[in-house]
């Protein structure tokens, strides 16, 4: 059950530019490959900015005490 795929429309001239680019640049098998790569790179930057730390201030104090006891702080 490998990944499912869907279709996204991009302007024809952009498709042509990418096609030309990947002909000179090894590593991308198709325009879809290239677009997937770029989108993953861009979306990862946005997702990273929105992630809160998964602990409370109580957690932090308890863990700081343990870290001090172990000599890490």
């Amino acid at each position: 059950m490998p990944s499912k795929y869907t279709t996204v429309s991009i302007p024809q001239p952009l498709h042509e530019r990418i096609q030309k680019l990947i002909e000179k640049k090894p590593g991308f098998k198709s325009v879809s490959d290239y677009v997937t790569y770029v989108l993953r790179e861009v979306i990862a930057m946005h997702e990273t900015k929105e992630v809160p730390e998964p602990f409370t201030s109580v957690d932090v104090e308890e863990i700081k005490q343990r870290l001090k006891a172990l000599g890490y702080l």
Partner: protein
Amino acid sequence: MPASPHGGTLVQVKQAPSDSGVFEGFSDACRLSIGQETQKIVWNLGNGVFSPLKGFMGEGDYANVIEQMRLENDVPWTLPILLFSERPKGVKAGDDVMLADGDRRPVAVISYEGNFDIDRKEYAKKVFGTEDSSHPGVSKVYTSPSSVISGKLKVIARPEYGGYADCTLTPKETRILFTEKGWKTVVAFQTRNAPHINHEYLQKSALGLVDGLFVNPVLGKKKSGDFRDEVIVASYRALINNYYPRDSVVMSVLHYEMQYAGPKEAITHAIMRKNFGCTHIIIGRDHAGVGDFYKPYAAQEIFGEFPDLGISPLFFREFYYCKKCAGIASERTCPHTEDDRLSFSGTKLRKMFSEGEVPPKEFMRPEVAQAIMKFKEPFVV
């Protein structure tokens, strides 16, 4: 600020003392015995080292990981996390199953989702890049059942790290530690070895680029001839205490069985360290490799396929002491031949230690060598 957890969530499974009532009342059919290495997987799932995984993979994630190197939700992931076991009799999807160690002590409770079969040759070929049973990872898969259980962890017995409790930190703890230290950038160093001079230079070169260094030796089942766990810890303590600025380095161990999957394991190593809060990871020569199954720098090349990994690799060539340069060098900085390098095979090093001979200081710090020599048998037999 530490790196965001992989997949956006640091998984934290509820923990309970092993004598808690949550582990009582399971019939023999709903009790499954697991080995020590699977127990370590449970710990790593439970405390978020394997985030965003919440349990043992189902068929969809498994198929996607071996075909695409991604989970079904498109998050990068390269090694299957499986619970090898025949279908438990009389258990149906949704039932709770308790995992217990060899002494029948509780390890965890999972919500059983089902069993599925894997093709072990396909697993070997797609994960390790070989079907050769002389590869330790392949050999392990071939001797495992072809049936695997999928299921999410509901609760785990509080992990007991034995003699390593004082140097085992969870991702939650390291994330707070790095923040308290004011480190915005942290580079991880994965190791399964006692440190040579070349490792020290690798780490210090990386440390010059970031705020902190996280030395994270792997403890667990290893190959014959590898350094024993206690030797690795003692030797790193000797190195750090004598040669590292105290405010720039943290060492904590990781309980994990090496797969020797080369490039694919390098990605998993990076993901685990990202969950610990590291922003960078050192990837050197033949990372996570074994024998000559992988090209020396294959583990560096594979990172190019993951623009969304969320942790940056720092690539280095191998360091060594060059007799003509009279110093530490690498292929990029030294024009001399391999014959001019000071190097010792594992076999020669083992012989030296067994005969009480100290390696030259250009190869290993004397304090590190002394720490190793305190052990009667420093190597895995």
